[in-house]
């Protein structure tokens, strides 16, 4: 579902726009960047924020 939500947000954006997604460790953090790449989006960075939260920056 995390990638479903990410994908819906990405669909609303224009080409070249940037989306930041906060993700928990484990399944979401494995899945979202991988699927985004597979779908042809550009994953710019994956940063640790705090605790188990990570920020993934995706460019459409």
């Amino acid at each position, binding site marked *: *579902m995390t*990638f479903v939500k*990410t994908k*819906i947000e990405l*669909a609303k954006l224009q080409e070249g726009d940037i989306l930041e997604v906060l993700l928990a460790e484990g399944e979401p953090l494995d899945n979202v960047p991988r699927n985004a790449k*597979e779908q042809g989006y550009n994953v710019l960075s994956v940063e640790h924020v705090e605790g188990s939260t990570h920020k993934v920056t995706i460019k459409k």
Partner: protein
Amino acid sequence: MAETKKLSLIAFSGDFDKLTAVFTLATGAAAVGYEVNIFFTFWGLDAIKKKLGRSPLGSNWLTKLFGVMMGGLHATPTSRFNFFGIGPKIFRSLMRKNNVATLEELVDAAKVLGINLYACEMAMHVLGLNKEDFIPEVKDVLGVASFLKLSEGGRTLFI
């Protein structure tokens, strides 16, 4: 031969939990680029009714009574632990608390992702339902032959 990325689901159950499984699989697959078809039949038709609560949809007194008893998406019972309708409320609150998408959110996501929704013609006849009784996202009313053609070359699940 490489399999096409296509998932077709037969949504037979009108249970809250099984419909949650249908829409979780469907949205997850659609998000990673699958073409997704859902064929709603019999009790499953409750998930795509325009009226989310209980209303007398039907063509005669008996099917109208069924319409009220079956209800729409908000009236779906859980297959276990229903406790006369309290079960779904408990599960909905647990899902919200754990940040898991609720059934309604999943259905909205399915619409946004352009998942193909189909209604079973035969079950509609039996239950006295019309295409107008369903949400506008329902693409078509189909029979078995058309569904088989649509699902050809992909994976099919019955839930």
